């Protein structure tokens, strides 16, 4: 087994692991990480493609990988920003709910149960 073959196996493993995790988890941050793991696998495949065959590595897949990293960073930033705002919105909803419940019980939401 040559070095590119090993990395090809790693790339496939990363894609599979990332995909499975993305499908199985409901935690937003974990989903973002899983997406990045799968993305890293795809980009690693491009590096393997560049290293295979001829003596000198092919520069085109390297250029594509760089572009791919830029895209992945932007997507991750947007995803993290959205995940944060989703959780803030959920938190605000829970607080409102707690305040409403508290008003119904004649106590404030912050007080502990007796």
């Amino acid at each position, binding site marked *: 087994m040559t070095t590119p073959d090993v990395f090809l196996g790693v790339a496939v493993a990363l894609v599979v692991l990332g995909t499975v995790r993305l499908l199985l988890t409901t935690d937003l941050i974990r989903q973002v990480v899983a*997406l990045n793991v799968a993305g890293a696998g*795809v980009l690693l495949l*491009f590096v393997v493609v560049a290293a295979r065959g001829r003596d000198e590595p092919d520069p085109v897949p390297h250029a594509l990988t760089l572009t791919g990293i830029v895209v992945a960073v932007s997507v991750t930033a*947007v*995803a993290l920003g*959205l995940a944060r705002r*989703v959780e803030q919105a959920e938190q605000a909803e829970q607080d409102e709910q707690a305040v409403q419940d508290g008003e119904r019980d004649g106590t404030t939401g912050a007080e502990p149960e007796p």
Partner: protein
Amino acid sequence: VSALLGLVVLLPLVGALACSLVPPRAATRTALAVSAATAGLVAALTLRVWEAGEVRIASAGYEPPLGISLVADGLSAAFLAMTAVVATAISVYASGTERARGGGMFWALWLALWSALNAVYLAGDLFNTYVALELMGLAAIGLVALAGRGALAAALRYLFVAVFGSLAFLLGVGLLYGELGTLDVAQVGASVERNAVATAALVLMTVGMALKSALFPVHGWLPAAHGGAPAAVSPALSALVIKASVYLAVRIWSTVLPGVGTPAAAHLLGALGAAAVVWGTLAALRQDRLKLVVAYSTVAQVGYLFLVFPLALAEGTPGDAARDGWAGALALGLSHGLAKAAMFMAAGTLALAHGSDRLAGMAGAAARRPVACATFAVAGISLAGLPPTAGFVGKWLVLQSSLATGQWWWAAVVLLGGLLTAAYVGRVLRVVFAERSPEDAPALRPVPARMEAAGLVLALLAVAMGLRALEVVRLLTAGSPFGMAA
């Protein structure tokens, strides 16, 4: 002339940057000017393709495989032109009121989305296609998130699906580059053979595009994202963004990897499309929010477009019938673009006027918002495929093709789908035409006339397109890939 290819991508992108820099009031004016100019450029390009069949440019004068090419054939031009018509109407619609746009960043994101759509249709290079897909996805996600708190979760779910779809596409691109050593669509198409690597690439790319097109059974993300988006965004998502990924799936099967897909795989895609038609329509019948009715209708209508695979792209189908299937299914895509944008605009107008898109609250709307309700009705007639609309022409060609190729079951799906479409459009119309005493009718918020007009024009264009069916078919088959197979 071939510089047009670059300009239709560049101009809206520059417009997007400009809109993010200037103050809000100026942004609206800038965006309208950019929209009109882009539509003009697309019209000139479409005319050129109509005459020449295919237009291409090697950017900076470098030929592939070193350079990156932009290519427009009949298929690209038809979708570019439909996008330009719908996009111009959306710009006019969105200029009506801030509430329709959802926020100050609307114009920048919307013009970036238009630029990305044009780039997808013109890309002659697989990696460029990937970058355009990601730009399209990010802009669309931002637009959904503009709706605020209620739509954030839907936007994030949309992001995961869209980015995962793009990654699957990129993985396919990597496999093809490893096998063939080129990213140029024409070169890949000329040298690819059916083998394990090409098949894996085809499967990955098709799955990615099916996810992005919300093909049954991976449609779950669409209703929340399309239904929850701001009024001016929903038409762009349902009419345009979905079409770009369907276009790409067709492009992959016909031009990038011709002959790699097996008839069995083509029939599987057709079967999923048929299931989408039935499932989406039944779900649309059961919604109690108007925008969700329209969103589930998109799930169903996407199904029709996937009939192009068994009818035109499976091997061994005779020439004429395959061409009818190609032109019919793709004409359905164009007419759905016009009609669905009109329908979402009407739904958005009604929702803004009533303060909510709950169907129950819209009783009697036909008397008070007649233009929006008429738009909904005319668009619905086109979606159901009644003559003389463009939807009718598309369905007629698909019917002919399925009978001529001995695949009568697709014809049954098309006819059943038309009936069910009429049912959910009729259900909405029954509510808005219901009589209501003036005393208990809620006060309506005013909606600018241009918003109603933009939707009505698109709905009427969907009818007019049916009257110019021959020209549409000629454009869809002009140049490669189908090259008038007859």
